[in-house]
């Protein structure tokens, strides 16, 4: 037990140590060498400048479904136009600002808008592959975090810097880079700013379902989302399943020496939630607008800022500071104070995207993943697996039932035999016994002819042929211990009637007693009571084996010649006047137990040491003196 305790304690300590080690490691850190000053496509200063410009002119308030959001959309359109994007450059001639509307929780008609522009290289025609790069631009400055509760009056007062000012600024920089640098691409790039997508995916859903043409959907090979950039780490997530784009993006990050993390199992798996089709669990990295495209079979890349390498299981922005996104502390001042290198993180994300777009083999890898988008819906269909378990349980139940029935049949429970009730009945004046084999004890009242079992001498005993019933009291113990010391064998004549050698007659005259005292010599040195074995034998009518006379004599001789230790002890032990419990064993001729009792043939084998037991100073079954019978 102690050994087991130590083993289990050691295992527990190992488990706790493993936790500690895992918690202290950055499981998602890049495996490639990271440049401390990588070659960004655009300097970090430009990213920070773009952010400050975006948040100026009261654009810290971009509350969903409000004029403030509309004002932010107008700003973005103007910026894109200034970069060189035409207002109606999309394939179907739609303008940049694409409105949509609906009803809110208060059943009021609300409106919002997406801002969409397309970069089309000069030599790329219709039907070319398309890559969508998106970021949501609204915030919850004058609203709560939920649109579902019409009575909710809470307002966050969030400036939306991390959610999602940094993402918008990064996308603006990339949009400007495309128009200014005009990289040679063989695909189009759609720049999309989603409204009404801060807490729900309303804007991005409207864009995919209502504002994209069928051709655009068919041609879109990748959707990249930028969100919450600027905190501890930049994570790039594409898919859990085997895809080409994951290794492609890893290669781009390694080649550029970028510090880009990958989400690992250190970030907890929430098995009870689903966000992406075919993915049977939820992780923090799955949160975002890209899920709309993912769930429609379009490959995605989620570039998000976070720190999922801490011991904290929640969705952490950074290790050293509490989350501020969507809260009143989500301000530019706090971002600069808490994350001084936020601009480098934005630049890292932007460089990863741009270098991927311009890398060789990009469009081939994306087209492959688009055409071979994995279908793992069955893994995420829980009811199938619960049904499998139910089936297994049903089979186990059937097997268990059959097995238990077989065992019960093979090993039946033995019936409990109730103890035999023995009544003591008085047979009066020679009346006939009702049943000679009855378990009842009959006390026969008749005159005793030198028989000690008669209580009332002179009254007929009616046991002329020997008492066939067990005696009520054990045979008496003789006071003469001399013979007992020498021999452990009590030899009796089994043919003699019961009590034939007894000389006790309470009603005998004095002369008769004296005569009998001289004549009677008891050889019984062990006044045992009827042992339980004999009684049990009586009940079950088992045969009690009684040794024959020659055997008894031989046993006596053996015992006298080679007394055992226990016999020696018994011989030297002080004798008490009280009778001792008699223990009987039998060997030799087999006779009926009842008859043997009736004929008083009770012997003790000398081979078995006799254990003397006292009955608390008195004979349990009768008086102090009783002769053997």
């Amino acid at each position: 037990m102690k050994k087991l305790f130590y083993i289990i304690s050691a295992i527990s300590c190992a488990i706790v140590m493993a936790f500690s080690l895992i918690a202290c490691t950055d499981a998602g850190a890049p495996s490639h060498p990271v440049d401390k000053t990588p070659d960004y496509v655009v300097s970090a200063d430009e990213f920070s400048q773009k952010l400050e410009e975006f948040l100026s002119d009261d654009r810290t308030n971009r509350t969903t479904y409000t004029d403030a959001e509309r004002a932010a959309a107008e700003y973005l359109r103007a910026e894109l136009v200034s970069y060189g994007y035409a207002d109606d450059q999309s394939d179907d001639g739609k303008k940049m600002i694409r409105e949509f509307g609906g009803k809110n929780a208060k059943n009021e008609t609300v409106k919002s808008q997406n801002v969409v522009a397309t970069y089309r290289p000069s030599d790329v025609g219709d039907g070319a592959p398309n890559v969508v790069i998106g970021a949501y631009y609204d915030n919850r400055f004058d609203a709560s975090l939920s649109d579902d509760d019409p009575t909710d009056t809470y307002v966050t007062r969030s400036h939306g810097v991390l959610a999602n000012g940094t993402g918008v600024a990064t996308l603006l920089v990339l949009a400007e880079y495309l128009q200014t640098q005009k990289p040679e691409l063989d695909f189009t790039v759609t720049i999309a700013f989603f409204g009404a997508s801060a807490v729900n995916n309303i804007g991005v859903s409207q864009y995919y379902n209502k504002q994209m043409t069928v051709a655009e959907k068919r041609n879109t090979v990748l959707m990249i989302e930028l969100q919450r950039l600027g905190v501890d780490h930049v994570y790039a997530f594409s898919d859990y399943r085997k895809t080409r784009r994951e290794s492609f993006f890893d290669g781009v990050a390694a080649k550029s020496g970028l510090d880009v993390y990958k989400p690992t199992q250190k970030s907890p798996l929430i098995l009870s939630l689903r966000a992406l089709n075919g993915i049977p669990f939820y992780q923090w990295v799955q949160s975002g607008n890209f899920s709309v495209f993912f769930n429609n079979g379009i490959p995605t890349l989620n570039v998000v800022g976070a720190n999922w390498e801490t011991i904290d299981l929640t969705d952490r922005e950074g290790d050293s500071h509490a989350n501020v996104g969507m809260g009143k502390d989500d301000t530019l001042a706090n971002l600069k104070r808490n994350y001084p290198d936020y601009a480098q993180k934005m630049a890292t994300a932007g460089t990863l995207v741009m270098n991927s777009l311009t890398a060789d083999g990009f469009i081939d890898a994306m087209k492959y993943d688009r055409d071979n988008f994995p279908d793992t819906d069955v893994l995420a269909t829980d009811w199938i697996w619960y049904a499998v378990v139910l089936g297994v349980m049903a089979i186990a139940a059937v097997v268990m039932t059959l097995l238990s029935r077989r065992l019960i049949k093979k090993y039946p429970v033995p019936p409990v035999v109730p103890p035999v009730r023995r009544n003591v009945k008085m047979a009066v004046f020679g009346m006939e016994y009702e049943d000679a084999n009855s378990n009842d004890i009959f006390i026969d009242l008749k005159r005793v002819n030198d028989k000690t079992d008669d209580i009332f001498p002179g009254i007929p005993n009616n046991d002329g042929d020997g008492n066939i019933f067990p005696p009520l009291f054990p045979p008496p113990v003789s006071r003469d211990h001399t013979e007992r010391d020498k021999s452990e064998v009590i030899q009796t004549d089994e043919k003699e009637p019961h009590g034939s050698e007894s000389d006790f007659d309470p009603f005998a005259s004095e002369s008769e007693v004296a005569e009998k005292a001289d004549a009677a010599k008891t050889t019984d040195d062990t006044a045992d009571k009827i042992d339980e074995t004999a009684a049990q034998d009586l009940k079950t009518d088992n045969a009690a084996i009684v040794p024959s006379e020659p055997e008894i004599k031989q046993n006596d001789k053996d015992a006298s010649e080679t007394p055992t230790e226990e016999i020696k002890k018994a011989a030297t032990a002080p004798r008490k006047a009280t009778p001792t419990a008699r223990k009987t064993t039998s060997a030799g001729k087999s006779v009926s137990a009842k008859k043997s009792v009736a004929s008083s043939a009770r012997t003790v084998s000398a081979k078995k040491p006799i254990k003397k037991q006292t009955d608390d100073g008195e004979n349990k079954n009768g008086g102090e003196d009783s002769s053997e019978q």
Partner: protein
Amino acid sequence: MLLFVYISYCAAGWYVMRGNMAFYGERYGFPAWIANDVVAFFLGGVLPLIVYSFVSAFCMRSFSIRFRGRGDISAVRYGLHFAVIAANIVLFLLKFIYLSVPLYAALLNIILDPVITIMFVALYLLYAFKREYVEKCMFGTVVTQVMGGFITVYALVSVISLILAVAA
């Protein structure tokens, strides 16, 4: 002994409890000292231990009532702790598979727990019978009571989860 059973249940349920702690921690704003791996480890064994204690006590009690004065399966119950501990340790080790194949985490989590546990309990009962921990005439009833308890609990959980999954 029950402490070791609890620790084993903590180990077996740790991985799933991480996810639950993360979800509720994010939803209700738990600080880091609550929503972490260590708390998730020790919290993961509470509910399974309660269920196990209740079911095993119920089984033993009903067995004692049926074989009043004749049956003593306290030895069986004590040994069952070891079987459960062994099953939970195996489950804990198997759940590291989730790290390498997270896509199969959900279905493995659904299937592994009941199958492994019942397998170990069955093996233990076989061992107990070989060693005659109880009289042979009680073999069948012990199988029914102990295995039936485990099968009933897992079947019940599966039924409820299936209904919820279909409804969702």
